[in-house]
């Protein structure tokens, strides 16, 4: 492995932050491997996104606004990524550990005969080998895996690295359309249910609610208000999702998402093992619960025992006035 290729996920020309986090880390890895960094940006808005990516330490930016990329799911992306990977030679490919990243990464790895690692929280180079660090078994153990072949694909957990602008050549290269391809997974329509929100996987602050919220309403009101004040996302425990109070895409835990925000606020969540495994690697954990004996008290950095319906709105007010005082 020599070069490092980064799959930049973007939304209408705006790169997702996780992509920039990965691009920043890629530079360090490429320097250790003696190679270059490449960013691959695909679909409508790729050119606009390349302007944002140029601020980060990337040597080459490969773009395509081929309309088939947005008309069909995954497969065109894999073809373009494969073309960049084959042209670069033995390479490490980094994708975000998001739905789109895992999709493209898993198919690309199969096509390249590459090793595949996922939910990676740290990367390093040791004697030319790339080591991938990932919590497994719900964070009970931390594994370090190295790639054996010429190519490796790693899916990186959001919030694992800091996105830091830096100098890079940033040469933009327009990719040629792969020849002789036809695609089958046709995107007929996109339905947006929660516009303009970062998902729980990517937000650096997550405010989650559990059984203690008692119904769907508090998720839309007091919890959402606090998340908005903190610039974060709303998460949920399995109990809340299974009760139908909030969609599954918000679920944190073993049968939901595994996340590492810098701040996790658990509201009315007991913190059973099934929930713990999804958020134990958060930077700081604050819990609000009416019961001092809840399991989450054993690993939260702060457990406030009181009435969440009183504390959460007051906290939202305090956060809002604090923010106003600093602008």
């Amino acid at each position: 492995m020599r070069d490092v290729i980064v799959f930049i996920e973007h939304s209408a020309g705006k790169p997702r932050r996780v992509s920039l986090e990965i691009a920043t880390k890629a530079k360090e890895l490429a320097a250790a491997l003696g190679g270059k960094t490449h960013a691959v940006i695909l679909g409508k808005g790729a050119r606009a996104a390349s302007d944002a990516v140029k601020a980060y330490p990337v040597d080459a930016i490969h773009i395509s606004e081929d309309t088939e990329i947005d008309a069909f799911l995954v497969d065109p992306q894999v073809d373009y990524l494969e073309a960049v990977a084959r042209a670069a030679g033995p390479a490490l490919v980094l994708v975000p550990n998001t739905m789109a990243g895992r999709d493209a990464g898993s198919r690309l790895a199969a096509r390249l005969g590459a090793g595949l690692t996922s939910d990676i929280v740290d990367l390093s180079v040791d004697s030319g080998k790339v080591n991938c660090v990932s919590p497994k078994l719900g964070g009970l153990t931390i594994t370090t895996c190295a790639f054996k072949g010429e190519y490796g694909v790693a899916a990186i957990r959001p919030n694992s690295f800091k996105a830091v602008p830096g100098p890079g050549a940033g040469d933009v290269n327009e990719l040629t359309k792969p020849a002789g391809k036809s695609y089958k997974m046709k995107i007929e329509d996109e339905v947006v249910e929660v516009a303009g929100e970062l998902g729980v996987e990517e937000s650096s602050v997550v405010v989650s609610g559990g059984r203690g919220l008692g119904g769907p309403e508090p998720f839309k009101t007091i919890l959402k208000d606090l998340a908005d004040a903190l610039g974060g996302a709303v998460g949920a425990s399995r109990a809340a999702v299974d009760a139908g109070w909030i969609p599954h895409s918000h679920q944190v835990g073993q049968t939901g998402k595994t996340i590492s925000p810098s701040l996790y606020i658990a509201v009315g969540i007991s913190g059973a093992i099934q929930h713990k495994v999804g958020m134990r690697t958060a930077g700081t954990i604050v819990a609000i619960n009416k019961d001092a004996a809840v399991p989450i008290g054993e690993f939260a950095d702060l457990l406030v025992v009181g009435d969440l319906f009183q504390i959460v709105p007051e906290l939202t007010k305090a956060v809002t006035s604090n923010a106003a005082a600093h602008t």
Partner: protein
Amino acid sequence: MKIVVTVKLVPDTTADKRIDPATKRLVRTGETVLNPFDEYAIEAALQLKEKLGAETTVTVVTMAPERGKEVVRKALAMGADDALMLSDPGCEGSDVMGTAYALAGAIAKNGFDLVVCGTQSTDAITGELPGALAEFLGVPGLTYVRKLEIDGTTLRAERETDSGFLKVTTGLPAVVSVTKSINEPRYPSLKGIMGAKKKTIAPLTLAELALEHPIGSGGAKTELVALTDPPARGKGKVVEVSSGAEGAKVIMDFLHAKKLI
């Protein structure tokens, strides 16, 4: 129509999972259960079969040691018709790519119109098997499906995204992975449990698959170099408050001290 459902044996989520320090592999001798996500895949396949009629079959395929049979029986008790079990010592030490490659071999040998997978397993949590499986089978791979319909040879699905969903159509054969939102898995009935004992769990070996590339630890494209314990996460501060404002102040002071706001 031939529907194949992939299933995996995973350690019981309530059991103590551990890794053997010598072999660096998951100790699988403890309590194992059917991967909870796979129950949604089985249910989705059974619902399709109910709509499509009796000529549709649901076959469960797994890569697991012999003793995994009891877990496979649960899938049969739910209503799957039969099972294929790839039990071969040569599979040991397979990584996700090796597993996908071997399962693709088994599924191709069996024949299929549709493969249904769970979104991920609760032990490895990679969520990457369905995509790799689709690639190895050379068919469309539609992941994170929350609604699934088959109309002739057209598959219509709603695919979850972070902000909502995509409406996607594709042709068969195909691989799909389904999320928890798609259905509520049934419990096996007593009749189902009794009937499952008579259903076939066909053993399969690597020799029968005649795969081109090696799998197992020899074929793995990744190697485990270290295992470490996670940083300890001890008990923090516990503060009882008597009003909302007091609670908010405790949290604000804490967040300020941590420089989080």
